[in-house]
């Protein structure tokens, strides 16, 4: 499918969206090319066979499966996609990429969509996932390595998810698997420079 064909597809969708006014979403024709550029994936090759979705470990817990997300991207349904749980539930296991007949890495598209959602101020549908990712990166920013104890404490505080797995954490701690003090690397200035270079919206 060429860009031209996509554009005309999108406009066709817009007409039908108008006719089912109310629950249909406005189409954003620039969405597909933007996501393709961000993810470096050729999303228009997807012929919606769902091989990815059938093998995706977390698809059952997603609101849209990976293939549906790609389809919604093809159809320019930006809001639906960026507000979805699916993009936060992908664990990046690359199973979809390994099997897709058209070589599409849906996981990479999910990553691009997460980043886009943050940049454009969409509230994440899985807030805890975001909080944990952020605390993980904070840990790296502070120490260059991950320090579980401080990361988990902050995560628990910020996510409000105070009680899940407390017993598990305690068991780990008792087995000496969670060090009390962080390891701090020497080259912190470089790490901080790398963090400082991040594009806006991702801090």
């Amino acid at each position: 499918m060429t860009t031209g064909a996509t554009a005309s597809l999108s406009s066709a969708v817009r007409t039908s969206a108008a006719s089912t006014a109310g629950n249909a979403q406005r189409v954003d024709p620039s969405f597909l090319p933007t996501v393709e550029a961000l993810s470096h994936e050729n999303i228009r090759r997807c012929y919606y066979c769902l091989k990815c979705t059938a093998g995706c470990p977390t698809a059952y817990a997603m609101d849209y499966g990976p293939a549906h997300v790609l389809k919604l991207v093809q159809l320019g349904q930006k809001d639906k996609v960026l507000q979805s749980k699916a993009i936060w539930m992908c664990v990046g296991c690359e199973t979809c990429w390994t099997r897709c007949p058209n070589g599409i890495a849906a996981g990479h598209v999910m990553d691009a969509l997460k980043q886009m959602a943050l940049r454009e101020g969409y509230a994440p549908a899985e807030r805890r996932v975001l909080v944990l990712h952020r605390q993980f990166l904070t840990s790296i920013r502070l120490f260059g390595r991950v320090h579980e104890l401080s990361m988990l404490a902050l995560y628990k505080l910020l996510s409000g998810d105070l009680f899940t797995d407390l017993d598990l954490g305690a068991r780990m701690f008792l087995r000496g698997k969670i060090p009390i003090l962080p390891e701090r690397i020497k080259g912190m200035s470089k790490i901080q420079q790398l963090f400082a270079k991040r594009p806006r919206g991702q801090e």
Partner: protein
Amino acid sequence: MKYSYYPGCTLHSTAIEYGWSTEAVCEALGIDLVEIEDWNCCGASSAHSLDPHLALALPTRDLMRAQAVGADIVMPCAACYGRMAAADHKMRSDSAWRKEMEAEFQTEYIGAARPRTLVDVLGNDLSPEALAAKVKRPLNGLRTVSYYGCLLIRPPDLTNRWDDPEHPVVMDRILKALGAEPVQWAHAVECCGASLALDRADVVTVLSGRIVQGANDAEADCIVCACPLCQANLDSRQKGISPKVPVLYITELMGIALDLPGRSKWFAKHLVDPRPMLRRKGLE
């Protein structure tokens, strides 16, 4: 055999027994691990989820530092391996990016050292015969199922196919050399839920539970894995499963077979204590 060594954060914390056993086994096998000086965290799935630049730049710092050792980089963690392999691939395939990183770290990227996973090195650089020759306590009668999860062998575009992405065999080959009885099962490459371990424990419980149940169905004595994340997920999410299945690192079993000292402290770190099972098998 010399390698540069990237332990990754977990081998100093939640997977400390993996770190200990890796170092002990490599020493016993004459594998010289030279730890990358002042390495940093690869960024794991958090970086690639939120920040494509960091996701590549963080591991690239490690790749650059590893060049000082001048040998393939071995890493025990599958998630680190996935990030390092992606960063290395980017450096090799995108010259504009390579130039940017070379300027950033003021180092030229020669690309002579390749990121490799520990199992690849143990199973492919070492012949099963050579390994078998060093075995002092064969793991006779131990039924094992090998668990790879996803990132150890996927995506094939990044792993160079060091093992088959759908039906991997290298771990079983090692285990056979150790005298164990690897059993065929269907869950070797199913994902355990990986990075959702803390924030969506419910999902991980379902995914990991299915895998542990699969090991029980195969009547395995233990699950053998080669990744701290997999181990933690499988080891910690066994509520309601009976009997509970010990989840051992492949290096721990090698440690037993090679009869290495100090191993009891490894097993003390597990949530599902493997010692009763090992005792039953006469392998403690």
